[in-house]
């Protein structure tokens, strides 16, 4: 009783003090968090990298990259630790990898925290706009002018992996700023079964479909086609964009930022019809969620007549341990052929690959080391060594070198495809645009949506994303 009386006597003022303390704590935490947000406004554009490389550290340093988990990531780490450390023995290169589906999120959530555990972000060309607009990567325009032989590159390759605002297809704007340098070039290759359809690859898209149809009919258990259809990453979107390009369509009008009416014009609808009604029936049952690995598995197990995949991911197809097509690389190559994509109304092919971009939040010594690595990497002899190590270089001299052309049967395909490349939209809204396209194309391919309605929905929804910048609330839905 005495205790409760005491509590009653003491509780009122003490409770007030406690409540006030809790409120102050909460307010202090809130103000601290708000304060951080307030500072960000001042750094909303990409900070500039130094034009010349300052003095490098002599202390041990780990130069970290972030990429997604695939064979080129391991190749880069091995190559850099073997070659770059000859020049910089105090440096260790670490390529951190995440699953492909988490790649964008893994980089941009760290950018959002204004603190990264990587020094070089390996960004897809389409991520550049988002990173530049948010001030996440360094502007390296002056650095490139002073340190890189820009004339040694096909201008579009240099622009595609570094320039913002986005370059027009096939061109580079000399006055635009650069935010990255090429790391790995890539495009789609057509993989075909020479033993089933003959040595000569189909030359047109229509011919390719009819050859695949015949091959499927003649070879029970083997599907005519295998290609990316999944709704994750950019899988189904790249497939549609490729067919769209080949049939003369356009993804948008970059000058007027118009998608609705451009993407879903007659050529766009024809491309969607070809994809869903002519190509999809030639694929394996249940292949509606296939991406890189599944397409490779189908080819390696002899389950597809013709397949489409990224060149950089095709190396494993020649590994006898992973293939049922032969017990040696030569036996596999007797059955598999690699060719550039067939043309139809145009000869466009998708631009793949990625560039190197320096994190704005990395420590200064690491940023300097990152710039030094990029300068080193773009030298002619290093690019050739990178080609021999399994990489796809971007310098023209490296692309035509025997080191590159003899390193893999698909490398000639890449060299021939360079002048034919087309990219997607490189805008800050890219992640949402590609998700809209992925989900709708995937729905059309899997019978969840009428193809015409799917394309119209893509155009409408993407247009609304581009137009929604001034909207009061509800952005992102």
């Amino acid at each position: 009783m005495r205790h409760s009386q005491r509590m009653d006597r003491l509780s009122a003022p003490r409770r007030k003090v406690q409540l006030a303390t809790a409120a102050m704590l909460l307010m202090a935490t809130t103000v601290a968090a708000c304060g951080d947000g307030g500072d960000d406004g001042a750094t909303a554009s990409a900070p500039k990298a130094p034009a010349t490389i300052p003095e490098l550290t002599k202390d041990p340093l780990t130069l970290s990259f972030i990429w997604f988990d695939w064979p080129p990531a391991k190749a880069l780490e091995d190559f850099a630790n073997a070659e770059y450390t000859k020049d910089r023995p105090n440096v260790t290169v670490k390529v951190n990898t995440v699953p492909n589906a988490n790649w964008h999120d893994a980089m941009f959530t760290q950018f959002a925290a204004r603190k990264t555990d990587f020094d070089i972000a390996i960004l897809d060309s389409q991520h550049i706009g988002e990173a530049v607009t948010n001030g996440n990567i360094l502007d390296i325009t002056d650095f490139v002018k002073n340190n890189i032989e820009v004339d040694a590159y096909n201008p579009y390759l240099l622009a595609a992996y570094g320039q913002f605002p986005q370059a027009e297809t096939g061109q580079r704007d000399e006055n635009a700023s650069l935010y990255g340098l090429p790391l790995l070039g890539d495009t789609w290759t057509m993989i075909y079964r020479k033993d089933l359809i003959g040595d000569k690859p189909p030359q047109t898209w229509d011919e390719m479909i009819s050859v695949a149809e015949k091959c499927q009919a003649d070879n029970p258990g083997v599907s005519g086609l295998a290609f990316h259809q999944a709704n994750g990453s950019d899988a189904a979107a790249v497939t549609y964009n490729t067919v769209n390009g080949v049939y003369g369509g356009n993804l948008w009008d970059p000058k007027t930022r118009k998608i609705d009416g451009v993407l879903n014009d007659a050529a766009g609808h024809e491309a969607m019809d070809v994809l869903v009604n002519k190509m999809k029936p030639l694929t394996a049952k249940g292949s509606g969620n296939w991406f890189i690995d599944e397409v490779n598995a189908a080819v390696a197990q002899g389950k597809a007549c013709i397949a489409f995949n990224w060149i950089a991911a095709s190396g494993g197809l020649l590994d006898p341990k992973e293939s049922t097509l032969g017990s040696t690389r030569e036996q596999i190559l007797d059955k598999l052929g690699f060719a550039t994509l067939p043309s139809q109304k145009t000869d466009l092919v998708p631009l793949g690959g990625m560039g190197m971009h320096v994190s704005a939040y990395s420590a200064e010594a690491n940023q300097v080391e990152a710039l030094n690595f990029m300068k080193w990497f773009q030298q002619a002899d290093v690019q050739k060594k990178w080609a021999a190590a399994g990489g796809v270089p971007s310098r023209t001299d490296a692309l035509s070198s025997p080191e590159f052309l003899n390193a893999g049967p698909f490398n000639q395909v890449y060299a021939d495809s360079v002048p034919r490349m087309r990219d997607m939209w490189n805008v800050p809204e890219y992640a949402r645009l590609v998700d809209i396209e992925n989900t709708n194309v995937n729905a059309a391919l899997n019978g969840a949506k009428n193809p015409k309605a799917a394309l119209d929905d893509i155009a409408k929804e993407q247009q609304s994303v581009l137009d929604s910048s001034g909207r009061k609330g509800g952005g992102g839905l």
Partner: protein
Amino acid sequence: MTDDAGQVAATPPPAPGRSRRLSDRGLAVAFISPALLLLLAMSVFPLLWALYLSFTDYSATRGGRAYFVGFGNYTAILTSAQVHQRALTTLIYVVGAVTLQTVLGFTIAYLISRRTRGRGLLTTLFLVPMMLSPVVVGLFWRFMLDAQFGVVNSMLGSIGLGQVEWLTRQRTALISLIVVDTWQWTPFIMLIALAGLTAVPKYLYEAASIDRASEWFRFRTITLPLVWPLLLIAVLFRAIEAFRLFDLVYILTNGGPGVSTETLSFHVYKVAFLGFNTGTASAYGILMVLVVIVLSQIYLRYLNRLKEG
């Protein structure tokens, strides 16, 4: 000062080695403070911060100032056809999965409770799926349900049935999600139901036997009414869990085909991390929490009424 003096006089002298200034209450506060601060920092503050952001157009990647948009985010979410579609998918999923889990879980528990030998071993075996990470479960079910190379279609093929596109067709994809979730979480319902079943007094059954009551009558009038309240709590937990399902969708279908298996949580993830529309995502999250709180309250009231009855 007077209070302090009074307090010292009223309480027994402190134990040797204990500071004379630290009262029992002070000691309690000292012990509770770390946990309280952690709770404030990790739960209360983020919730209040999310509430604040939900009224703004803030984007975590863009940074800069957060502009007040009033209830703009909330009205946009509540009137969005896309959100309605995800809400319907989530509802079908929650009802389907929880119903199946309840029926199966209770049935298994009932059968186990009737065994006298091997009950412990059986219970442990049934609990194994629940102990696995949902990501691991999702991955191996993804392989098993693969239309071309999966063991499920291989087994169906060996008995003469055709291939089923488990994860790439609109209907089968949602059913697959329900089946996989049921495989993992039926043991949870089973465990709680088993606890309820073993707590039913034996004398009730003995009395019923003396009255020559049938098995069905005993189940209907003794077992079910006594286990029902406990079972309803299990259903509540499962429904809340199922409502915020994310991991299985992410691994098994990625929301596809199209967006047909996208749940509300998966959609929030896309809003938050694809476009980094932090303000909208915060409002979306707050609305989801509100839905759970309101439905739970209604449910708990029903449960209390049931107990009182």
